[in-house]
């Protein structure tokens, strides 16, 4: 890989549509897709960037920059900048706005794209938490066909899936679910790859003092969806009974310890986040 970066000449292809993009990609299978570049260039502080030999720039592919909205969902092209999503205004679910505002800084959000944030292995990819919780789906497009995959399935398979299928994420479909209560916490050091870092997110709908819907998720070195907690809490009236909460928290602690063994700090931080989130619902 190091040799690949040190080759003297870089080639940059700028396709105008997806057909042209796949044509270049078939000709140069080692080419790397480049849109915002924040993930690829992260941590490079030398005077010159170390770029892969072949790059395919997505800047001119308009198909990847479209935004559509229907009554039920928002459909965003993968090369749309994070700040462009914020500029859509009140149609964007509040939870998504909260998460996007916590990524990088306003300048970086002006170049980072939503597809890049999903594709990234970096822990900054806080978007996974909200997209899984909102039941988002991604369109994976290859030269031959296109298929939709749920966010949770995509994260579980990892970005290697794209490499295997020689496909790219072209669209992201986000259901326009609104939540009455949002609890979001970033864990770990925000300026470096922290193995003990991640994002905890709790989304909750409360109607007439009864919890009607709840999603609780942690995304970091592992993905933990607290499904038992979700099914137990839905239908309960607030304030929640202390005994009941204690039992649920005990189950959560076991689940966390099982999913992230040997990381005591992370285990405790997730547990504290759950406790704080439940306390604040009450």
């Amino acid at each position, binding site marked *: 890989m190091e040799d690949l970066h040190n080759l003297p000449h870089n080639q940059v292809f700028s396709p105008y549509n997806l057909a042209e993009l796949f044509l270049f990609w078939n000709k140069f299978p080692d080419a790397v897709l480049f849109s915002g570049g924040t993930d690829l260039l992260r*941590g*490079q502080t030398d005077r010159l960037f170390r*770029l892969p030999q072949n790059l395919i*720039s997505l800047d001119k592919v308009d198909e990847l920059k479209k935004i559509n909205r229907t009554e039920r969902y928002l459909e965003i092209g993968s090369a749309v900048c994070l700040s462009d999503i914020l500029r859509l205004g009140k149609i964007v679910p509040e939870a998504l706005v909260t998460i996007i505002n916590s990524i990088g800084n*306003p*300048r970086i959000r002006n*170049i980072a794209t939503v597809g890049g944030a999903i594709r990234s292995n970096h822990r900054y990819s806080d978007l996974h938490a909200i997209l899984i919780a909102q039941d988002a789906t991604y369109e994976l497009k290859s030269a031959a066909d296109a298929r939709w995959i749920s966010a949770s399935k995509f994260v579980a398979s990892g970005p290697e899936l794209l490499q295997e299928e020689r496909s790219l994420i072209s669209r992201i479909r986000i259901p326009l679910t609104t939540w009455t209560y949002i609890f979001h916490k970033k864990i770990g050091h925000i300026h470096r790859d922290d193995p003990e870092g991640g994002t905890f997110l709790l989304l909750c709908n409360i109607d007439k003092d009864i919890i009607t819907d709840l999603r609780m998720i942690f995304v970091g070195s592992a993905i933990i969806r607290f499904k038992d907690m979700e099914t137990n809490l839905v239908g309960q009236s607030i304030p929640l009974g202390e005994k009941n909460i204690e039992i649920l928290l005990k189950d959560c602690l076991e689940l966390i310890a099982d999913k992230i063994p040997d990381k005591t700090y992370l285990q405790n931080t997730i547990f504290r986040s759950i406790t704080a989130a439940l306390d604040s619902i009450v």
Partner: protein
Amino acid sequence: MTIPFILNGEDVVAQCSVDKRLVDILRDNFKLAGTRADCRSGLCGACSVIFNGRLVPSCLIPAFKVKDGEVITIEGFMQTLEYQDIISGFNQTGFRPDQFCATSIILGIEALLSQNLRPEPQEIYTAFTDIQCRNLDPNQLVPMIKSISEIRQRRLYGRSA
């Protein structure tokens, strides 16, 4: 690589390798020293420029992305009436940005006001979360932006809100 682009309203051409950063093109090829290269990771804001209408860290823009684009640096922005509004607002509120942060603060204010002439305090705080200027008191930020916004509204519409 030959890179034609618009720099501060003028058509220019830069000869450089594709892996060069925009900040270095501006400083080396065009001697525009108002854009500083400090952290080279998009965090400090000293290299901010307006690229295709967006405020971006020029240290994270490789040369090939600049092709056919439009770049406005602090030197180009200083020639505009919008810059005068910002300076009048600074004078009115007694704010003096230090040299290092001036570029990021001035272009940050412009990026904010060009999108929304009457930003809410929360929007202002969000837009300036990453600016860590020693001279900038967070309590001073909202009145300062409001003052600049009023000056601009007076200039554009002959009255403030």
